[in-house]
């Protein structure tokens, strides 16, 4: 996500070619989601599911798939509430992972939605033609039925592309009406099924055997019908056109999953009780076998016996379902390519908005081209499987995005929804999607050729065209200037320490501490300054705000460059904390040194809006200095400990920073408070650490004080010392927002200079934070 600014591309401020009309209500977007879910998939998949998993397995399939869909829907809901813009997964990947990944996400989304659209257009054509054939109305046709189906599919796709061109409102209203019709139809089937089962309870015998082919068949049917739950993608695309998007987008996603799961479970139940086990039509077979034998037509055959004229009504329902899904997929494909065009990753034509209609006509043309080509040329079933694979990749990426974005940008984005038990749901969703994607390998070999081929084409497109043209978004990190003041070959084995300087005063106060730390560690120094640019200022003007930082770095360089190899970096990021953490990772720094003015900016933070996130996320040791003046001497250092993981680093830093000379009376007091609970064994700890760090044992002394108020006891003890060195809080990240933290309270109230340290213990630290 880091971008060198030597050739700054055009910025978002100059891009818009108009805006999309914001007129979709919660009802419209919920119906759009439902429309994409209740496509042809459920009508075709019901019979197959009952045949493969049995009567109980079919209901379990839809209930469990609903729960799984809910996990990914939660991720979509959280992200679209925080980033409510057309583009859906593309935008999430752009914010979470940067340009390359986001291009791939948009590229896959564009293709997957377009191909799904062509599949729905064909389904519509097939059922419509059969409907007319049933009444012998097509004998006059001069062309074959197959060709006629393709012509009808192209015409249908054309009609819905035109409806999408008419505007979001028309798209939403037309889609909502069709979806409402098919949803009510399925609901009626479910209600009739329950009524029939109450009236004739002997039909419940159809549930025996419940799982005739074993529980493992559930995985197959779940994978097969998962496509019938993926409507939240189209809702995410409506970010630019929905009213109150932060509130309505997450609600629509969650409601649509709830509604669709209940309806599917009811419809599955009704299918299984549709025929009595004694009915002559079964010819002695069990119902689930009879339905299974009818495959895709199984649902229709069963429902036609449940209610009068069921077969005709079902045919109409499939026609409605495929058109609403077609409408939703065209909308989704268009917004994905529009977002790519808007950020100049595709030609500008894709971002063109019609002046009167306020619709992205360029992106519509692109989606129309893919849909029509697929309808007329390619084998739809295999291409549709590749679309499923890409949808799974997309969902996988979105679940990763929600974790990364909450972790890195929790203080930057405005959230309209926060999921509970984070990150349990996205992790569960990722695991399930891996299993389902693996299963699809066995379903279609061609799908696993088409999907990688499209992805490789996208990668070539990105590297040859999009990469150099993509605009810089406000979320990115810009490197404004980088300098190295040493020969790279000289410092192969040096310990990398980064020093974050904000202004000349802050830089002066950091020099002494940095000098001691670098000397003890035999370090190379990387000075970093994050340029603070107000939100309303263009990124082009970032350099204008860099003068205090440059001055601060010059001051630090003058004092440190005689002793240590120095490099400097001047960067810009809307969030200083994110910019520094990104630089720490990129430069593989082992220790970060920074200053603290001594008061948090708001009550939300312990130490401050910049320091808290850095302490939480820095992949290295962190040393924060407060009141560490250049002219101060630190002969007596206090190290309060309670047995946490920062103890060893606190002890080491105290030994480095304590002004120690031969025969001098310096001392380091390792201190703990006995509150009546378990007391930390200080002497054993000091023995172990002095041995490990090769320090003189006699410089350290232990002290235990009995008190019920550890904060008061430590503050009282600090009065007898020149400097306090202590670890930051180590509470798990989920609970860091609650209650208070003793080290940070002490840091705020202590009148003596303070050094706060946070030790990086690698994977152990990461796992502990998440658990």
């Amino acid at each position, binding site marked *: 996500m880091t971008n060198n600014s030597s050739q700054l591309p055009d910025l978002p401020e100059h891009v818009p070619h108009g805006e999309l009309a914001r007129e979709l209500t919660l009802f419209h977007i919920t119906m759009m989601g439902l429309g994409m879910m209740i496509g042809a998939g459920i009508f075709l998949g019901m019979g197959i599911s009952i045949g493969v998993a049995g009567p109980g397995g079919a209901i379990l399939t839809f209930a469990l798939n609903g729960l799984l869909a*809910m996990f990914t829907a939660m991720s979509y809901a959280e992200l679209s509430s925080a980033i409510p813009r057309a583009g859906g997964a593309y935008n999430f990947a752009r914010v979470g992972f940067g340009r390359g990944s986001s291009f791939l996400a948009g590229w896959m989304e564009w293709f997957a939605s377009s191909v799904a659209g062509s599949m729905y257009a064909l389904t519509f054509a097939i059922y419509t033609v059969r409907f007319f054939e049933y009444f012998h109305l097509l004998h006059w046709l001069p062309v074959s039925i197959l060709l006629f189906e393709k012509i009808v599919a192209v015409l249908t796709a054309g009609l819905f592309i035109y409806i999408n061109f008419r505007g979001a409102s028309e798209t939403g209203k037309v889609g909502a009406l069709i979806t409402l019709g098919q949803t009510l139809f399925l609901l009626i089937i479910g209600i009739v099924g329950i009524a029939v089962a109450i009236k004739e309870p002997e039909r419940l015998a159809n549930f025996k055997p419940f799982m005739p082919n074993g529980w493992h068949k559930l995985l197959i049917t779940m994978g097969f019908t998962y496509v019938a739950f993926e409507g939240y993608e189209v809702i995410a695309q409506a970010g630019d056109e929905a009213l109150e998007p932060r509130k309505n987008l997450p609600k629509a996603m969650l409601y649509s999953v709830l509604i669709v799961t209940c309806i599917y479970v009811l419809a599955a139940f009704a299918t299984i009780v549709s025929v009595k086990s004694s009915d002559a039509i079964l010819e002695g077979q069990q119902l689930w076998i009879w339905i299974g034998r009818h495959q895709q037509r199984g649902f229709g055959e069963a429902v036609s016996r449940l209610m009068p004229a069921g077969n005709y009504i079902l045919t109409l329902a499939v026609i409605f379902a495929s058109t609403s899904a077609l409408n939703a997929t065209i909308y989704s494909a268009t917004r994905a390519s529009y977002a790519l065009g808007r950020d100049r990753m595709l030609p500008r034509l894709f971002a063109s908005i019609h002046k009167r209609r306020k619709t992205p006509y360029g992106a519509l043309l692109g989606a129309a081209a893919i849909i029509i080509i697929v309808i007329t040329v390619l084998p739809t079933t295999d291409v549709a499987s590749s679309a499923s694979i890409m949808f799974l990749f997309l969902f996988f990426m979105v679940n990763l995005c929600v974790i990364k974005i909450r972790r890195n940008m929790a203080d930057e984005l405005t959230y309209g929804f926060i999921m509970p038990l984070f990150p349990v749901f996205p992790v569960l969703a990722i695991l399930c999607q891996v299993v389902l994607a693996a299963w699809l390998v066995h379903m279609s070999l061609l799908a696993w050729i088409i999907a990688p081929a499209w992805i490789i084409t996208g990668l070539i497109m990105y590297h040859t065209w999009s990469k150099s043209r993509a605009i810089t978004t406000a979320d990115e990190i810009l490197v404004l200037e980088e300098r190295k003041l040493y020969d790279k070959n000289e410092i192969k084995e040096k310990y990398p320490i980064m020093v974050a300087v904000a202004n000349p005063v802050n830089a002066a106060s950091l020099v002494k501490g940095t000098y001691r730390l670098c000397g003890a560690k035999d370090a190379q120094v990387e000075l970093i300054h994050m340029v603070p640019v107000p939100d309303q200022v263009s990124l082009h003007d970032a350099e204008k705000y860099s003068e205090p930082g440059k001055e601060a770095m010059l001051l630090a360089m003058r004092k440190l460059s005689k002793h240590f190899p120095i490099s400097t970096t001047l960067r810009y990021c809307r969030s200083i904390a994110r910019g520094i953490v990104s630089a720490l990772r990129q430069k593989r720094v082992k220790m970060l040194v920074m200053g603290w003015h001594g008061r948090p900016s708001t009550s939300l933070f312990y130490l401050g809006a910049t320091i808290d996130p850095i302490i939480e996320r820095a992949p290295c040791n962190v040393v924060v200095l407060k009141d560490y003046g250049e002219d101060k001497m630190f002969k007596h250092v206090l190290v309060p400990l309670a047995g946490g993981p920062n103890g060893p680093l606190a002890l080491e830093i105290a030994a480095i920073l304590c002004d120690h000379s031969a025969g001098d009376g310096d001392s380091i007091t390792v201190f703990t408070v006995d509150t009546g609970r378990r007391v930390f064994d200080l002497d054993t700890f000091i023995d172990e650490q002095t041995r490990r760090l090769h320090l003189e044992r006699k410089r350290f002394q232990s002290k235990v004080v009995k008190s019920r108020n550890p904060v008061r006891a430590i503050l009282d003890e600090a009065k007898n010392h020149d400097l306090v060195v202590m670890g930051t809080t180590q509470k798990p990240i989920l609970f860091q927002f609650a209650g208070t933290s003793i080290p940070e309270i002490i840091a705020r109230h202590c009148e003596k200079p303070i050094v706060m340290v946070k030790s990086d213990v690698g994977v152990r630290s990461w796992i502990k934070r998440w658990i």
Partner: protein
Amino acid sequence: MDVEIIIGCVIIALALGGIIALNLWSRRTINRIAQNGYRTARQTLREMQRDK
């Protein structure tokens, strides 16, 4: 009654119950965030902890 049917019914009930519970919880959270004007994730989590 068949053990498989009992287990199946329990799983279906748990799955549907889970979806409904998550919907209710989420709806309440969305409305609370909108009403109180919470902005960042940190602020929202902190205020929600405080409410408890």
